[in-house]
């Protein structure tokens, strides 16, 4: 190509003109994006997200039909697999004796031991699962949420060996045939990767509360910022006695269970 000085100058001028027009150009692009996708400022933010589950209220809601579980699993395309060895669960009901082994006595604790209560990822302050991941596919965000990138996961299951709560699930088979209804707004996963509760990071980004908290019919679940004195979780934790799962392991779970005043 014949590139002389004159052509070069022309090009430079054109490029400068383009740069000058940058702002309006971007504004035009931004306005083309549907307003419900980008809502700067609307996202819920926290220093450290946490959940408080009031077992006294949860106990009274025998007829809620596990609304929290169904809402979460429908929203996040969690498959319903019959084989218990291949189950995938983000949140589920588990007997108190299983959630708090060696922690409940045979007197007042006996009722709690039999009570089915929600179990989910604890979003630990000191998560062993993220520490062991060889690819950084699972990591803790600055706001305390432990998230999972299924596209980077190689399926080694080291995180599952490290999690002392059994909160992680592996796709032992292709989960898609086991999905009855697919929510098109949330990705499905393939076989061979690990997945788990994400504290609904995608809903928080849109300014909405987690699906389970929203679905709970008896107000047993509270969600908020542990660093904010005004947040409902801090108020509940200041006024009530709470327990956490396996505190002796030093993982510092962000899911608290209220047992009494």
């Amino acid at each position, binding site marked *: 190509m014949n590139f002389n000085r004159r052509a070069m100058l022309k090009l430079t001028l054109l490029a400068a003109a383009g740069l000058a027009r940058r702002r309006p150009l971007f504004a035009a692009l931004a306005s083309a994006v549907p307003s419900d996708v980008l809502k700067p400022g609307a996202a819920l933010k926290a220093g450290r997200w946490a959940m408080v589950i009031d077992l006294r209220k949860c106990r009274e809601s025998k007829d809620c039909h596990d609304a929290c579980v169904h809402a979460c699993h429908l929203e996040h395309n969690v498959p319903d697999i019959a084989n218990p060895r291949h189950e995938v669960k983000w949140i589920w009901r588990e007997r108190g*004796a*299983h959630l708090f082994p060696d922690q409940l006595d045979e007197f007042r604790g006996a009722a709690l031991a039999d009570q089915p209560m929600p179990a989910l990822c604890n979003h630990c302050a000191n998560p062993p699962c993220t520490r062991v991941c060889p690819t950084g596919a699972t990591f803790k965000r600055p706001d305390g949420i432990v998230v999972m990138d299924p596209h980077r996961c190689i399926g080694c299951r080291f995180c599952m*060996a490290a999690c002392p709560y*059994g909160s992680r*699930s*592996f796709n*032992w088979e292709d989960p898609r045939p086991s999905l009855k209804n697919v929510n098109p707004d949330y990705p499905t996963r393939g076989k061979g990767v690990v997945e788990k509760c994400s504290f609904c990071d995608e809903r928080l980004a849109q300014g909405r509360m987690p699906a389970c908290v929203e679905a709970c019919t008896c107000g047993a679940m509270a969600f908020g910022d542990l660093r904010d004195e005004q947040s409902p979780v801090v108020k509940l934790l200041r006024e009530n006695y709470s327990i956490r799962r396996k505190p002796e*392991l030093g993982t510092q779970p962000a899911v608290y269970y209220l047992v009494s005043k």
Partner: protein
Amino acid sequence: MIERAFIGRGRYQLWLAGWLIPVGVGLACYLFQYSHGLGITGMGRDVIWGFYIAQFTFLVGVAASAVMVVAPFYLHDCREFARIVILGEFLAVTAVIMCVLHIFVDLGQPSRVLNVLLHPSPGSVMFWDMIVLTGYLGLNLVIGWTTLDCERNASRPPRWIKPLIFLSIPWAVAIHTVTAFLYSGLPGRHLWLTAVVAPRFLATAFASGPALLVLLCLLLKWAVGFDAGNAGLRRLSITIVYAVLANLFFIFVECFTAFYSGVPSHRHDLQYLFWGLDGHAAMVPWMWLSLLMAVASLPILLSSIRRGNQRLLALACGLVFFSTWIDKGLGFIAGGLAVSPMGTVASYAPTVPELLISLGIYAVGVLLLTLFYKIVLSVRAETESP
């Protein structure tokens, strides 16, 4: 030199072809697993690792054990091992390759395995395990090949090989220590959450690897008339017996801590392995058989007269090898995962395709080892012929 691996009589060619069959069967089973997912194995929500990871753990030990001939030969000038040391190095190379293959078939997304390099995570023990294993593979391959080539040319080994040999000695200890740290750094897995895992791994490694090496030397003697030398085998059997004793001592120490302290979580996994827990007792006969075989090897290995008898020595080494294989290749993983995070007991049994995939990998190992040893033996025959 490599061409010597494929030149042989009909019997040798038949041996190679025969081992290709299980390799093919394993590959077919792996393709089945690749298309259906790891659900075709006996693993599941609670027992998330199974036969593959157990074989990986066992084989890291076999690989590490090369140091038990390399260190005495190169550091202490122990000439009895002159004809064995190269066999140990190539056994290590083969074992590491089998380790890597067992990890590979255990991955849910094998096509993404290079993510470990693309996103290096120094906080993960698995990242370091990859580094030490590939390093050890390279070291032994280079050392074995170079020293053999020099032997063939009747030349002195190059000066740069010496530092590599010395490096390979602590490196051998490192591969099994790092592998132990994969397990002993996990909170809430109580069979593994103990400082004795790494020392016990080394003890079982230094028992099983040399035992296999003795068996291989005897096999070479009986099958193709290659004599590795009685003195070397006897010396190796002393290493084996002290490693077996150390391992039995570590098991005793572990049991004392768990049962005398009475902490339920520490007790449960050992209870599952040796007595059964909540009606789950599949591992009990295996674990007692393992202990029995280890103890039964002692009267042979401790007596210098009996270990001088090659048939008895072969028997003792067989006992030690299978004892440690049960201990690490079956019990360690199943026991560590038997009690789920919910406190319930989960049993695990490998499926047929799972076993066939693993068998296929072992067959790859047999083939590789055959090729390596064929090269070694051809070079030896050439240099030793008048």
